[in-house]
């Protein structure tokens, strides 16, 4: 298929007229195509996609080979021991070719294929038309392999040596599949130890680089081994998983208060952190590499620390952390918890597990699980009777609280009930205010009436009598009795002139 084909198909489909032929599979098999499959029908698309992917992988391999050959030649010319070198290299080459032909499925296939290291194309064509059931897994495994080789390329000779050892180890592990998981774990641990040691003594790789390389090796081998060594049938890991799952389910009534968890989920930020922490711890199961699983635990722990810090306004100590982690595990009930812990313990690079921050949080998770298994009435500050009653499911401590909703309801529903509660409280207050207002109004009216009545009474009691003044105010000269005796005022006289 080509990119331009995809484009033209898209533009045509956007138009009003769609030719019948445009709808059909581009390969002309007669089935309808789909733009999501770039115009192919599902079957043809799968084939095309597979071919393209194989081609890409092959190209990468050829590049890797070429680079390594150049490297090898350069090395051989500098060293006089040419014969021995080329011998080991041809072995290396062969293994790599085998690796290429090994198409996800099983290592068994890989070995049978090794006998016919013929034309690569032949092998690829033979395989292309059979889409694998584990395509998802195969894509990831291929991707990891490619990354691993890319990574090793940067280390030249040492990288090659490491690749050789890793392949040998994986081959060996195939034959050890019937051994107990403890023995297989032992092999993996020995391998980690030997590779790291060789790198330091022979390769003279500085320690911080060794660590980086070890991480990549772990990723590569564990992506491949995961299927066979995670929760293997020969162990009772699965039984333990179910047991702890059942136990956690039986303990769902445990409240944060009983565990003395210093986290207040009423603060939205804190409840966010709690949700994130639960998501992280559940996500652990989806990872294949032990180190990635550890990273999930560390992420979860960081969210827990944040939740405690927001609640308490001070950084959390171990006294706060462990109870909260227990609470998160109880609330999250992470899938295949025991299997994951066992897998990490058995197959993680030991230096990462015993020390370092990841190791610390992992140990705390182990403590939390051990605590949950042993948890009793005393550890929750409950009486034995109460504990037994809660465990049997007869009563739930939450029912005693005023919460009318289910304790398992989702956050949204809980929030809704809380809001409804608040609304009814507000309604109540509103009504109270209304009645108070009415009362106030009545009081005011009564008061006015009362005052009016009192005034009336007083007015009646002391009627208002306005007596006419005894003397007119104007008679200011009234006391002047001699008035009449005064000479008359001067009269104007008119003189005729």
């Amino acid at each position, binding site marked *: 298929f080509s990119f331009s084909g995809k484009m033209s198909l898209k533009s045509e489909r956007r138009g009003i007229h769609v030719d019948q032929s445009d709808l059909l599979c581009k390969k002309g098999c007669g089935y309808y195509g789909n733009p999501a499959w770039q115009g192919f029908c599902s079957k043809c698309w799968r084939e095309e996609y597979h071919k393209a992917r194989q081609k890409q992988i092959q190209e990468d391999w050829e590049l890797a080979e070429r680079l390594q050959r150049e490297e090898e030649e350069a090395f051989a010319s500098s060293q006089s021991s040419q014969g021995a070198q080329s011998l080991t290299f041809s072995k290396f080459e062969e293994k790599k070719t085998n690796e290429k032909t090994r198409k996800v499925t099983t290592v068994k296939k890989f070995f049978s294929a090794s006998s016919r290291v013929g034309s690569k194309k032949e092998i690829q064509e033979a395989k292309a038309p059979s889409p694998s059931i584990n395509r998802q897994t195969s894509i990831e495994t291929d991707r990891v392999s490619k990354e691993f080789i890319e990574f090793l390329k940067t280390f030249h000779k040492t990288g090659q040596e490491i690749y050789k050892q890793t392949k040998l180890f994986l081959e060996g592990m195939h034959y050890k599949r019937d051994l107990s998981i*403890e023995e297989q*774990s*032992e092999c993996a*641990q020995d391998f*980690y*130890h030997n590779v*790291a*040691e060789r790198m*330091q*003594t022979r390769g003279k790789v*500085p*320690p*911080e680089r060794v660590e980086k390389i070890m991480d990549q090796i772990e990723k590569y081998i564990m992506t491949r081994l995961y299927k066979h060594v995670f929760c293997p049938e020969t162990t009772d890991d699965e039984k333990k998983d179910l047991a702890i799952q059942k136990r956690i389910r039986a303990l769902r009534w445990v409240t944060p208060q009983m565990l*003395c968890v210093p986290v207040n989920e009423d603060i939205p930020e804190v409840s966010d952190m709690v949700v994130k922490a639960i998501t992280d711890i559940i996500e652990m199961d989806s990872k294949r590499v032990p180190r990635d699983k550890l990273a999930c635990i560390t992420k979860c*722990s*960081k969210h827990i*620390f*944040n939740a*405690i*810090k927001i609640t308490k306004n001070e*950084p*959390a*100590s*171990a*006294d706060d*952390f*462990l*109870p909260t982690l227990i609470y998160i595990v109880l609330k999250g009930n992470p899938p295949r918890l025991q299997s994951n*812990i*066992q897998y990490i*313990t*058995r197959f993680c690079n*030991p*230096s990462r597990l*015993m*020390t*370092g*921050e990841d190791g*610390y*949080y992992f*140990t705390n998770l*182990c*403590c939390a*699980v*051990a*605590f949950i*298994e*042993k948890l009793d009435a*005393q*550890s929750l500050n409950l009486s034995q009777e109460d504990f037994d009653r809660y465990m049997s499911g007869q009563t739930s401590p939450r029912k005693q609280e005023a919460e009318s909703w289910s304790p398992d309801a989702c956050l949204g529903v809980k929030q809704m009930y809380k809001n409804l509660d608040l609304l009814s409280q507000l309604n109540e207050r509103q009504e109270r205010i209304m009645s108070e207002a009415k009362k106030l109004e009545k009081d005011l009216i009564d008061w006015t009436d009362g005052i009016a009545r009192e005034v009336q009474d007083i007015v009646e009691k002391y009627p208002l009598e306005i007596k006419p003044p005894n003397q007119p105010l104007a008679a200011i000269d009234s006391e002047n009795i001699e008035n009449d005796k005064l000479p008359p005022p001067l009269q104007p006289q008119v003189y005729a002139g």
Partner: protein
Amino acid sequence: MAQAHRTPQPRAAPSQPRAFKLVLLGSGSVGKSSLALRYVKNDFKSILPTVGCAFFTKVVDVGATSLKLEIWDTAGQEKYHSVCHLYFRGANAALLVYDITRKDSFLKAQQWLKDLEKELHPGEVLVMLVGNKTDLSEEREVTFQEGKEFADSQRLLFMETSAKLNQQVREVFNSVAQELLQRDDGEGQAPRGDAAVALNEGPARQAKCCAH
């Protein structure tokens, strides 16, 4: 180099200081976290944890060499006592912390020591007894003499501190670091084969004891 990878005793590379794991043990509220926080905080070189105070690392200089201390805080509440043995795995040193104003915390520290001895081989871990809260000496219930005598009888290091007043805190960690280096050097001089055998026992046992 052989034992370096399989045990927490880190590889002896000159560019990287050797790392040692130190666990803080003791009852609740005796000041384990405060002690560690005080120690780590008062040094500009250490990286302060942004959110939690439960796991610290600190590079300590002892003479010409330096080592990396990894400090693991543990939950001290009584109810977690039964699971705390998981913290001991791979520990190089342990601080048994008690509160000098609480006799029960001193007795508890003795209990911790028994637990430690159950989980680890004698001599595998360096233990120091620490009486904290000397700032509250008027309420003292455990005398210096009592602490010292117990420590001597069990061949532990001993010190009294005040995390609050920052008294003797540095000294505690420094003397542990010094002792660790001395022991480590002593081991290094021992015949290689013997050391490898002894050390190889560790991880195998550790791998299994997680399978609870």
